[in-house]
């Protein structure tokens, strides 16, 4: 089974990020939301109404999906941008206006006359996003929109999405494995692992094989043993909420069963500035801890510096 969801909703307006490893089911989820596929069980609802299996074209036109490795049609970039507009029967003058606007926002001026084999992967992705934006859909779904872009281009792309959302009510759902992009640009984040929604925030998710027995046990993640309290055995997903991790410069005596030393890899400021996400490499495993900006300053944390992450066995969620 690829996806096992009780309930998943994309809000009417805003940017929702769905985060997870490759193979977690993100692409399938997006295809269901795009009304391109029907679920084998359950339903898709649009504004509360059930969407029939044979989705009417008028409804499908209000949702647009940009795939992870998008494909452009034969013809020039401009032909591609115009495609969806032509399908909707929009007149020449209006088309030119819309194209001009979307070209400016995504910086495609030099690419307009090119054909698909003359474009890099990043350029193809940008054109595909522009092609979708030009249609002004009610719902825009993007599968790894920045995977082929360099940091600058990714930033431009996300800024264009935010600008679009500011200009009109637009629901955006982005599937990504890049947590940092999700932190910076999304209004809300959901995590998907093994086809299921993680009940906690999306960082620190690991697939493990739990040994037999009840109670306290060790779960192997990379080169590190995580002590966890659970009766479950076999394949499972562990989630360690970043807010439950204590950060210190050296080992502290405490009741925490998990004490991991490592080095700081990077720090990211949270969207509204009050918190800091500290990424560290502990024994080959990357963990993220969330602390206040003040605490980060007091500890004088810096990339490359030594750090200790501690957390209780009971803090580890298993699902």
């Amino acid at each position, binding site marked *: 089974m690829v996806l096992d969801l009780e309930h998943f909703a994309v809000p009417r307006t805003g940017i929702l990020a769905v985060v997870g490893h490759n193979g977690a089911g993100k692409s399938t989820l997006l295809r269901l939301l795009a009304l391109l596929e029907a679920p084998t069980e359950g339903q898709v609802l649009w504004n509360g109404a059930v969407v029939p299996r044979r989705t009417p074209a008028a409804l499908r036109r209000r949702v647009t999906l940009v795939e992870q*490795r998008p494909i452009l049609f034969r013809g020039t970039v401009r032909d591609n941008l115009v*495609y*969806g507009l032509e399908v909707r029967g929009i007149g020449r003058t209006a088309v030119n206006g819309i194209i001009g606007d979307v070209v400016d926002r995504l910086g495609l001026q030099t690419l307009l006359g090119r054909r698909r084999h003359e474009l890099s992967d990043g350029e193809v992705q940008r054109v595909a996003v522009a092609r979708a934006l030009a*249609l002004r859909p009610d719902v825009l779904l993007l599968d790894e929109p920045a995977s082929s872009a360099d940091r600058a281009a990714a930033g431009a792309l996300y800024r264009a999405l935010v600008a679009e959302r500011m200009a009109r009510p637009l629901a955006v759902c982005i599937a990504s494995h890049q947590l940092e992009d999700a932190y910076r640009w999304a209004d809300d984040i959901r995590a998907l692992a093994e086809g299921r929604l993680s009940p906690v925030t999306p960082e620190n998710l690991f697939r493990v094989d739990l040994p037999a027995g009840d109670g306290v046990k060790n779960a192997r993640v990379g080169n590190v043993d995580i002590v966890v309290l659970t009766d479950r055995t076999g394949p499972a997903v562990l989630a360690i909420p970043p807010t439950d991790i204590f950060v210190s410069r050296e080992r502290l005596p405490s009741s925490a069963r998990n004490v991991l030393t490592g080095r700081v890899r990077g720090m990211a400021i949270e969207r509204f500035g009050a918190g800091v996400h500290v990424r560290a490499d502990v024994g080959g495993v990357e963990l993220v801890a969330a602390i206040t900006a003040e605490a980060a300053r007091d500890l004088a944390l810096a990339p490359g510096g030594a750090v200790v992450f501690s957390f209780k066995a009971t803090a580890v969620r298993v699902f």
Partner: protein
Amino acid sequence: MDFLAEAFRRAWGLLVAGDSEVYGIALLTLKVAVVATVISCVVGLPLGYFLATRRFWGRRAALTVVNTALAFPTVVVGLLLYGLLSRRGPLGGLGWLYTWQAIVIGDVLLALPIAAALSAAAIQGVDPRIRRTAETLGAGSWRTAWTVAREARFALAAVITAAFGQVVAEIGAAMIVGGNIRGSTRTLTTAVALYTSQGDFGLALALGLVLLLLALVVNIALQMLQGRGSG
């Protein structure tokens, strides 16, 4: 050697002089071939698209039937059609036997499997993302089909060319249901067979050269189309 040299001289003379017999037969052949190609492609290409893209019960069987029909010997198609069209047959009342229309029907039956099977293969060769992309950009089924076909346009042009090549060069159906009647159902292929058996080798050669030229043009066109299609 004299025999061949003499025949070539006569053939060359006929071609250069624009002999009405030779060119009349060539034109009839072209007329029949074009009509049969158009009909078989108008039916066969959409059929191929349907077979390639729609999931329906019996799809595999349908594809197998179409692919098997590719192997039908032309003379057997002619034979079966004769059975239908002869005066004692079920469609005898139409009076189509020994007319150029009968040859067209036979040729359509021969070219239809080509059009359907090869266009199905061509459509299946198109990246599946094209269809999904067209759909997500709001295209309905007809528009999506057109977009997919555009992506395969060189392969589809090759299919049409292949169908044409088949009907222009076949003799089995044309001979049996056409009857090889001078001026009305004598095609290049049936004429070559007749004149060779009658001993007029020069005339047969002239007709054969025209046929060869047609076949070469078709082949070159096919090569070019298939080359561009993969480029």
